[in-house]
Structure formats: structure tokens, C-alpha cells
């Protein structure tokens, strides 16, 4: 993080973008996932099929959408349908990845984007609510969470489970009735790339971001992380990634 070649937003975008594969379907939300998908389409994943909740399928992300329903979400797209079609497509197991964010995340990858504080109504702080997030977290095969790293966001227990991660641990999703084989795969943060332990379903450190130590990650996380003995450092954004991001993807610097 000491490097000034890129900012934290660019780091999140590049880290998330590298996780996007070619020839898969991915549910894309507003903001960083859109930029990551646009970058991935120009690099390793030209046939990444972005799916937007209100009906856009297979857009070529030449210009950045500012909203999940706007015309750029089906620019040169393959299909323009509606929200029921998209959510039902996810329910039938056709959407491989979903990208999510939130104000809080817990060790099991449960996400909160509804309220802050102990009471539902009236709440201390009212956030936007689920939107499509709960459907994405319930129905896509695997989800990738993108979130800024601090003790305020990485909390032992979220104030409200807007979107299910692994809930209370192994078997809990299936017990709740959610489709088997689903759940969060990665967490991309400003300090680290994290995953989930196969057995306990608790969050596990995979890589630290460039210039970040394991101790820093631990200090900024409000719960105990699983720390393997060997931790690699994530590759910093390359000059080429940054060039594409700044000169092609977000020419007007709306996000970065």
C-alpha cells in the first residue's frame, strides 16, 4: 500500500478482475465489479458474459454503466430481458459467479447492507437494503465479495444478515434450504485476498496485498482469521492493467 503507482480502488479492481474467467457467466453489480469485468474482457476473459439483474446479458462493456439497469448493461449484448428471467436463470444454476459488496462481513462471509445497530426499526443507520444481493448470494454458484478492509467492516457478527454467506458454518446453507454447492469463494479486500476453509467454512487468509504484512491484516480484522503457514504476496497491478483501466475502461475517471 506504500506504493503510489495506484490507489486502493484500482487495487481492488485489478485483484477482482484477475479472478474473472473466460467463457463463464458472472452476475455484475454497480461499481467495482463493472470495472473489473470491463478490464477482464480486455485481458484474459474476452468472452466473459456479464449478467445484470434487470435484464442485460452478454454486454460488451465499452462504456461504463452508471446503473445496473441502464442501456450500457446490454450494449451490443446478447439478450435484454427482465429481472424475473435473470433471477430464475440463477435459480436454475446457470450463473457461475456473483460479485457482492456490503458494509459489514463476518467470518462466514455473511454480508450486511441493510442497517447498522441492534434494532431493525427505527434503526441507528439505514442502508439501502438487499437489492439483488440476497438473490445473488443465494442462487449463483460461487460469490466473490469485494470490500474495504477495516475492523468496522470485518466484524465478528454482522448487525443484519442481508445476504447469506455460510451462515453459522458447515452445513448451515443446506439446512436453511439454499442450493448445495453454493457460497462465497473469495473476499477481495484492500489488504488481502481471502478465502474460506473447506472444513470450518471460516475465512482464511490467502495472500496479502503488496506492502501489507500479515500482522496488519490481523490487526484490521475484527475476528480470528485462519492463517496458513505460507502466505504469498499478491502481484501489484501491472502497468498494462493500470493503462487499460485508466485509458480505456474508466476514461472519465468516474470511479478510479
Amino acid at each position: 500500500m506504500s506504493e503510489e503507482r495506484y490507489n486502493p480502488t484500482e487495487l481492488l479492481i485489478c485483484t477482482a478482475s484477475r479472478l474473472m474467467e473466460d467463457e463463464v457467466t458472472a452476475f455484475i453489480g454497480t461499481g467495482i465489479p463493472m470495472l473489473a469485468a470491463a478490464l477482464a474482457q480486455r485481458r484474459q476473459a474476452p468472452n466473459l458474459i456479464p449478467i445484470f439483474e434487470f435484464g442485460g446479458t452478454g454486454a460488451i462493456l465499452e462504456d461504463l454503466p452508471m446503473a445496473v439497469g441502464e442501456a450500457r448493461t446490454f450494449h451490443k449484448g446478447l439478450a435484454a430481458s427482465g429481472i424475473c428471467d435473470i433471477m430464475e436463470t440463477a435459480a436454475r444454476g446457470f450463473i457461475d459467479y456473483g460479485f457482492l459488496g456490503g458494509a459489514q462481513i463476518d467470518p462466514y462471509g455473511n454480508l450486511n447492507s441493510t442497517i447498522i445497530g441492534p434494532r431493525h426499526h427505527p434503526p441507528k443507520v439505514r442502508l439501502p437494503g438487499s437489492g439483488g444481493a440476497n438473490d445473488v448470494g443465494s442462487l449463483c454458484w460461487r460469490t466473490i465479495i469485494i470490500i474495504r478492509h477495516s475492523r468496522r467492516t470485518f466484524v465478528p457478527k454482522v448487525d443484519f444478515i442481508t445476504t447469506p454467506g455460510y451462515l453459522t458454518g458447515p452445513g448451515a446453507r443446506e439446512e436453511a434450504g439454499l442450493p448445495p454447492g453454493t457460497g462465497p469463494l473469495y473476499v477481495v479486500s484492500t489488504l488481502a485476498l481471502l478465502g474460506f476453509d473447506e472444513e470450518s467454512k471460516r475465512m482464511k487468509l490467502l495472500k496479502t496485498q503488496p506492502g501489507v504484512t500479515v500482522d496488519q491484516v490481523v490487526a484490521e480484522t475484527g475476528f480470528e482469521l485462519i492463517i496458513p503457514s505460507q502466505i504469498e504476496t499478491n502481484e501489484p497491478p501491472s502497468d498494462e492493467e493500470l493503462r487499460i483501466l485508466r485509458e480505456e475502461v474508466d476514461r472519465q475517471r468516474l470511479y478510479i
Partner: protein
Amino acid sequence: MRVIESGIGELIQIPDMNAFREWNRTQKSRKLVDKLMTEQEAIRRFVYDGCYIGTELYGTVRCPMSLVREVIRQGIKDLRVAGQGVTELDLWLAAGIVKTLDITYIGLEVYGVSSALRRAVESGQVEKVVEWSNGGISWRFKAAAMGVPFLPVRSMLGSDTFKYSAAKIVECPFTGEKVALLPALILDVGLIHVHRADRYGNCQIEGITGFALEMARASKRLIISAEEIVPTEEIRRYPDRTVIPYYLVDAVVHAPFGSHPGEMAYRYCRDEPEIKAWVEASKTEEGARAYLKEWVYDLPDHQAYLKKVGRERLDRLVEGRERRE
């Protein structure tokens, strides 16, 4: 079918499908009659204090903003609102006319959390808030559109979004697995903006259809605003493009740039400075009030609104539209 768990949120309206059928039989004419009227007349005739109302698509995209502003102008209050929104529900919340919310998402997307929502909900001015997911609320409209009282889905399970909803979890009678039952949602009034309609209310949309098809079929009264009013021959030439047939519709309003400051696919792009102006103004109660005065209360109608926006600015939005290349 055994109910395993019930959400503790209030079911705002019981999905009485027999009453809905009867309504559609007796209150919805099959006659091809001219329904073209102004925003003022449509809102005066069909929207009332305390009604259960919804808008489509949302705030910055194909949204019936001229109708939304007219609802505020007429001083209608105590609305029970279903759905998700950006600028449209922000305006209603800031105007203090929302009493109950079936909420999925209210926010400003790229510009973050809605200050108008925060003030209205945290103060308790909005008395009840019931949580749903976007898929959830759309499927609730779909259930009503199907004429069934609920739909089983595999979303919202295991979450607090379920807990604070009015859904129920049951054991599937065929597989034994848990499923969430979403109650059908029948609106008193739906507001939808489309690309073109004829005077009878046959509607065609370009680009994504959001949840227009479902909401149109789940509304007891449906007010359509359209960018363009076309002759019925034009509709008959492309009947495959009609997504809302006339008998669902109670009023047709001609509203060019009706989605402003939002966009309309293939016609005009969103007006970023105007959206940002609301984002800034709405940060304080005074700012929001001043904005409402300037852009809603002090203008008699949509024509005056467009005149205030100005031809030059509207032309620029047309220039920036999505094109079929």
C-alpha cells in the same frame, strides 16, 4: 404443508385472488376506449391517500418521473410503497409522503446511501419497513400476475432479509426441502413509463423490461406514461412488441423525456449533472426541500419542467443516447 418459520414483517395486503379476479372482471373494461389524459388527471383519478403503490423500473432508468412529481404536487400522503428506487422514491421520501415500505433497495447506486431514506426511516417518519430482495419482490408481482396467492422460491432463506419480511418457510410437499413462500403482491396503483403506447394503452418497451410485465399484471389500477403516443395501426404492425396490453391500463399520459433526469434506452441518456444536483441537495433536509420547491411545487406540470430543463440540455441527452450499431 407445514410452516417451519414465518417472517415477522407485516403483510401489507392479503393476496385475495378471488377478489382480484372479480376486480378484473368488473372494474377493468375490455372496450377500446381513449385513455389519453394529462398527468394531473391520471393522478387525481387513480392515486389516493394511503394507497399501495409501486413504480417501475427505477429512478434513473425508464422511470415514470413526471407521474412521480405529480403525486407530490397533488399532496397525496400516507403512501404504502412497494419496491426499489433511486431518485423517484427519494423524492417521495423527502416530501414526507411515505408511511409504509416494502423495501428491496433504496439508494443512489454509484453515489452511495440515500440521505432522504436515512432521514425518513431513522426518524420513524416511515412507520413500517418490510424487507425483501429484488428477486423476491419481482416474484411477488409475478405470483399476482399468475393469479396464484404465493410462489415458492429458493432465495431469502437463512437470512435476516427473510426474518424481517412477510414470507414463510415451509417443507416442500414433493421433495421435503425447505422453500420460501412469497405472498403475491397486488398493488392498488402501478406507475410505468414506456417507449410507446397507443391511446388505448397498448405498450411497447425497448431494451430490458425490468419488472414491467409482472407489475402491470399485478396492479388494480395502472397508469402508463409514454415517450410517444402512436396510432393503433403502428401497434398492430408490431404486435409482437406489445408487452402490456390495453385492458391492463387505466390511463395513458404522453410524457416526452418522462424519465428525466434518468435515461430511456435508445432515446436519451441520463442527465448526470441533474442527478448529482439531487444527490447534493438531498444531503440536508433544507436542501431537499429547496429542490422540491424549485423542481416540483413551483412548476405547474411536466411541460413547465421540460421548459425549465431547457431544449439545449435535452438535445445533449438525445445525442448521448445508446445507439443500435
